[in-house]
């Protein structure tokens, strides 16, 4: 599963994208974030407040509690600020 990070989440974690293989019990983006947060202090800092984090599953924005299914890519990012 490919994970992408954007904006300050990417900065805190220190990578833009990585391949991960979460265990079967990780079934939602919220659970995926909690699992990623255990990978190190940088991850914990990025995911410390899920209220300010948005998620896209295969490039479609979803809630943190949407079932993951078997996605090709999952992206975590702050609320968008374009335009």
């Amino acid at each position, binding site marked *: 599963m490919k994970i992408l990070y954007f904006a300050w989440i990417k900065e805190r974690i220190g990578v833009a994208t990585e391949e991960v293989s979460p265990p079967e019990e990780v079934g939602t983006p919220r659970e995926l974030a909690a699992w990623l947060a255990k990978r190190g202090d940088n991850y914990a800092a990025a995911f410390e407040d899920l209220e300010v984090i948005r998620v896209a599953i295969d490039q479609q924005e979803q809630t943190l509690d949407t079932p993951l299914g078997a996605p090709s890519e999952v992206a975590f990012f702050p*609320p*968008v600020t*374009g*335009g």
Partner: protein
Amino acid sequence: MGRVLVRVQPDDFDVAEELDRLAALPGVGAVAQFVGVVRDRPADDPASATADAPTVVGLELEHYPGMTETALQSIAERALAGWPLAAATILHRVGALTLGDRIVLTAAASPHRHAAQEACAFMMDRLKTDAPFWKRELMSDGAARWVAARATDDFASKRWDP
């Protein structure tokens, strides 16, 4: 859908060229355009508008390649579905921008001015909340900071909900 033009690019875009293209479409009597530019005050901090507060000297625009284009295409298609338009355009820059640079163009062409104006405003409001771009402001004191999303943009976007 040939009536939609969406582009995400580091380079500037030619507003006059796009206006001419839209104005030449059959039946078009009205073209509404909105252009967003990099301004010298932070967008989300009214308190900063004092004389000695640091000003914005540049902007970096990050995006999510693939998802961004899809989101803009969807916004433009919804504009075409919601108003009697001949065409709808969204052009958005990414990368490093400087003060006064154009960031975004939304444009709508229609037989009728109110349709063009409303569709143009709709696309900007939805773009602000639905398209994966992130702005990082470079300040005159050397600092850089990610722009925070604004609740007023959420309200503005929701006003178009059915």
